[in-house]
């Protein structure tokens, strides 16, 4: 690893000041992506600003029919929160499926969405539930936030404060995990709020997480298994690597969609 300075901050204001004063610095949350990347010398920030001790970023609460989660809340907390289990069980299940227990003890929801790994799980929940992301500068919809793989709308000196998920019980996330890393080879999140259906896909596209509009339309017209089965994801623009071809991944997404749909209706 290259040399860097390390600064632990206690408040959001302090974090923003540090980030503005030194544009070559990076936020450190759980470090479960950033530190492995720095170990491989694929990143070399001049300074790390450790936000894990900022109390005001670590919370889970219910507010006017939304569950709001502070950005440094770790995956274990989301997976075991009674409130989330009761209100949005699909979200606690998703968190429980991230990596392994040790990674879940450190990794945070804010880090996961800011990183926007094309195979990460949380981005699918944000898009699939229509979450809103509050930052130190503004509030963004999930559709505005996720731009492309490893790319978000976040500016250099902007920090994620919290993520607000509308309470939609009729929702489910199904992923086919890579057997080694547990990252999604294809993951599909479906939610249904009255007539509003949202479907998000992670792990598959070369451009990162995306909304599957064709599937949304088919399910909005007719909420049935045959509506899911008749839509097929095109292999064009779908990732192809040592773990699977585009055709294989597109087919996995089709299957995950069917399983997610069936689980909602169980």
């Amino acid at each position, binding site marked *: 690893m290259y040399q860097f300075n390390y600064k632990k901050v206690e408040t959001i204001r302090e974090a923003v000041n540090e980030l503005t004063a030194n544009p070559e610095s990076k936020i450190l949350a759980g470090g479960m992506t950033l530190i*492995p990347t720095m170990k491989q010398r694929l990143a070399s920030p001049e300074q790390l600003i450790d936000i894990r001790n900022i109390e005001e970023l670590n919370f889970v609460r219910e507010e006017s029919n939304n569950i709001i989660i502070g950005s440094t809340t770790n995956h*274990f907390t989301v997976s075991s929160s009674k409130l989330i289990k009761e209100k949005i069980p699909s979200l606690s299940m998703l968190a429980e499926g991230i*990596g*392994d227990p040790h*990674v879940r003890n450190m990794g945070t929801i804010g880090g996961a969405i800011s990183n926007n790994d094309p195979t990460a799980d949380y981005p699918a929940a944000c898009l699939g539930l229509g979450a809103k992301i509050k930052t130190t500068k503004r509030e963004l919809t999930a559709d505005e936030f996720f731009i492309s793989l490893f790319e978000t709308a976040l500016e250099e000196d902007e920090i994620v404060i919290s993520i607000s998920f509308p309470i939609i019980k009729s929702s489910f996330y199904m992923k086919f995990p890579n057997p080694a890393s547990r990252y999604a080879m294809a993951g599909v999140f479906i939610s249904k709020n009255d007539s509003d259906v949202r479907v998000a896909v992670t792990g598959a596209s070369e451009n990162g997480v995306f909304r599957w509009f064709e599937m949304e339309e088919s399910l909005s017209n007719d909420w049935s298994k045959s509506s899911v089965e008749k839509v097929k994801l095109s292999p064009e623009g779908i990732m192809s690597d040592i773990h699977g071809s585009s055709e294989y991944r597109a087919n996995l997404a089709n299957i995950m969609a069917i399983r997610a749909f069936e689980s909602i209706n169980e």
Partner: protein
Amino acid sequence: MSLVELEINGSKVSQDVEERQLLVHFIRDDLNLTGTHVGCDTSQCGACVVHVDGKAVKSCSILAVQANNSKITTIEGLADGENLHPVQEAFRENHGLQCGFCTPGMIMAAVDIINRNSILDEKTVREELEGNLCRCTGYQNIVKSIIAASKKM
């Protein structure tokens, strides 16, 4: 350099470290507690698992400076003098190791699994071991050891 003050296996430590030093190297090279192992460079194998403030973490993926002011337990801190910890005892009884390289991480993970789950079945143990790799045993006896230990704790 930054000053790191923490408690490890009940002893207080205070030392200057380079910001880039990983916790596992601080434990192994500076404190000479070589029970904690390094088995990969991809954060996947779990040979490096220790407890920081009671939570199992991969010490190869956190910085020593992040652990400032914490309480750490490593494999060396489990036994009570000559008396092995129940999980260590169960690994010995049930042949839960062969070469032993993964064992410190396995045992630290196992203690954490047992602490968090009141009832343990085979399926849960296997899921919970997702972050720990073993190249020798085929996991069979590791799972057996953890279930046996959970009944004694």
